[in-house]
């Protein structure tokens, strides 16, 4: 085997599907991860926040090619019109069915090796993973390094939970927005605790930053500007629209939804505060950086625009996908980001 993917989530599946689409045999790829089902973690989180629609639009799917998107799978002209107007958000159930088809079609299980990789070492001809290898091309997609839980003992939004009559929800991003509506729908009174007002944005990042048009300027910017952009984009945001605003306004009028600056001793506190941030929380990445003296800036590993680690990509390839790949692609923690890294990785893997 000459190619390894470390991680067993959506970013890994996107990379695997892209490689297979490019004609790389399953036998040439090893996928190291802790979950044989690459949808397991994401499915659990979506279920925990009762998410029914994707934030992403039609292209937010795991197929290697952008077309056909999920809207065409709906066989409903209204979905096709909505996708032309950027108003189509695929149902989570449809996305999961599609992802299951990708898993089955690509032969994921033939490449999957159930194992947590602790150490990656650069060696002649590639990389060793805990002594296995060498693999000439490696893609690391280790995912979020853990849930951010600023209040010890509180339940996290991405963990299974129900709603008490009075709920305090900490955070102001996409998960928090779901939780406000869920708790209100369950009849709870909700206090939203936030440090700042959330940004209202259809997608995680402005659309030009998903393509070369915006990325070129981003890649040319200085490391300080890079980091400033990433910090700005990591502020909590959720989409604009009546779907979100009307239930909140109605609940405010009824006195069931309030905003507060501090947790006020409510019986149930839910942390919709996302994930731990930065490579240092990920043992594999932290060790990789330390052992190979890789350049970093603030909480990010410095990457080339094509998501590779420049110091370790020279005849061999080390690509970082998923949230840890934000230096190359600000929306790296989205499906579009996973595919961005996957496509660049697949281009390099074609070189035997």
């Amino acid at each position: 085997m000459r190619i390894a993917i470390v991680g067993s989530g959506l970013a890994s599946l996107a990379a695997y599907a892209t490689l297979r689409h490019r004609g790389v045999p399953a036998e040439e790829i090893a996928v190291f991860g802790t979950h044989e089902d690459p949808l397991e973690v994401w499915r659990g989180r979506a279920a925990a926040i009762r998410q029914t629609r994707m934030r992403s639009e039609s292209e937010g799917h795991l197929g290697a090619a952008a077309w056909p998107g999920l809207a065409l799978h709906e066989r409903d002209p209204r979905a096709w019109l909505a996708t032309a107007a950027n108003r189509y958000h695929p149902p989570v159930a449809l996305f999961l069915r599609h992802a299951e088809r990708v898993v089955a079609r690509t032969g994921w299980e033939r490449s999957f090796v159930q194992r947590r990789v602790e150490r990656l070492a650069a060696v002649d001809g590639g990389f060793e993973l805990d002594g296995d290898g060498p693999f000439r091309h490696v893609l690391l997609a280790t995912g979020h390094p853990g849930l951010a839980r600023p209040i010890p003992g509180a339940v996290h939004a991405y963990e299974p939970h129900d709603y008490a009559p009075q709920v305090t929800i900490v955070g102001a991003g996409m998960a928090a927005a779901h939780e406000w509506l869920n708790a209100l729908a369950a009849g709870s009174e909700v206090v939203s605790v936030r440090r700042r007002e959330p940004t209202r944005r259809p997608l995680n990042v402005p659309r030009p930053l998903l393509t070369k048009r915006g990325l070129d300027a981003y890649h040319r910017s200085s490391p300080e500007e890079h980091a400033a952009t990433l910090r700005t984009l990591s502020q909590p945001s959720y989409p604009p629209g009546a779907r979100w605003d009307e239930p909140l306004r109605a609940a405010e009028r009824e006195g069931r939804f309030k905003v507060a600056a501090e947790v006020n001793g409510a019986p149930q506190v839910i942390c919709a505060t996302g994930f731990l941030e930065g490579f240092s929380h990920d043992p594999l990445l932290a060790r990789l950086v330390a052992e190979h003296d890789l350049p970093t800036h603030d909480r990010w590993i410095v990457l080339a625009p094509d998501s590779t680690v420049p110091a370790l990509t020279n005849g061999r390839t080390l690509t970082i996908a998923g949230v840890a790949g934000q230096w190359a692609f600000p929306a790296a923690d989205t499906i579009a980001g996973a595919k961005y890294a996957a496509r660049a990785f697949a281009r390099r893997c074609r070189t035997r």
Partner: protein
Amino acid sequence: MSYTLRGRIQSRLAAAVSPLVVALALQRWWAIELVALMLAIQLVLDLVYDRLLAYQPAWLALPLGALELGLVYGAVRALDVMWPLGWMLALFGIAWLSGQIFAHAIFPRARLEYGESGGELGRVGAATAVAVAVTLVGGLGAAYAVRPPTVHLHGTVQGPLVIDHAETLVGGVVRGGIVVRASHVTLKHVTVVGGQYGVDVEHAQHVMIDHVRVVRPVLDGIRALDAGVMISDCSVTSPAGGLVTGILISYSMGRPMSMVEGCTIAGTREGIATHSSAVSVMNNHVVGTTERGILLGEMSMDMATHNTVEGAKGIGIICMDHSMCEIEHNTVAATQPDGNQDPTRGGVGIEAFFYAEAKLSHNTVIASPGGMRAFDNSIFTSTLPGM
């Protein structure tokens, strides 16, 4: 999609393969010229779009397409070229639709990075774009090299002038008539004085007669026999005898559809007459004819729309002899009886005669004692009350 400028241009050129193939299949220079004109306008617009649109949602393709169509049509009018409108719209539609299919389906499948590359197509796509550009430039060059010669007439030429090869004749005065015996002939801004026929076209097609003035013809002002002609903005006046027909198109059913548009005809026996032909007669002004203003006859399949017929003796507009006509939005005024006591010629504004079928709508008939009438097993049909 957030296009880069290079992405817009490469995508635009590569997607032009479809209309270019259609244009080449048509084997008509005007089609290649039209595709080139469309592309030129679109590429200029791409420079504007690049500045204005950081992100272009899919729905925007519709208003932008409408804008581009309007500009292409405006350019065609401004350039004063006579390309067939139907084909022009069809080619534009093919270009627009194929552009959408390429941008949203074919390119993203053929090149996985298409979206994130801002529409840039890589080496293969760039080569395709260059090939399209080279084909168009080469095609235009070839069209220019083999284009019919243009002859500018100065002063007065004694005719009859016989044209027996593709040629564009511009300006001047021809005495004794012009005889056209070849296809792809264009007459522009020519004045013809006298002659049996002012302009006589036989067994030819793609003949354009634009801004031609015929004065004092003996038989017909413009005659087309077994021919496909596009006549626009002409005038036929001062007939030399009582039997003159302003424009006569006959026995041309096997030729491409003819058109008579924007002409003024005064004082002839018949204004515009068709026999066994398919002709679109529109926006013409026919005044003071002594027998019939507009005649659509002998199994013709014609349309007469937005014409004005004034002061005709006998009949304003007639659809006759097994013809099928669409007569819409015409104004017929002051039609007078010709004095023969024959009701079919008794100042009838619009008439169907002898097994003819005329579909009428939105016509206005004023001060014509015969009104609108069907005779001798003919019928009027109408989608509107009052016709």
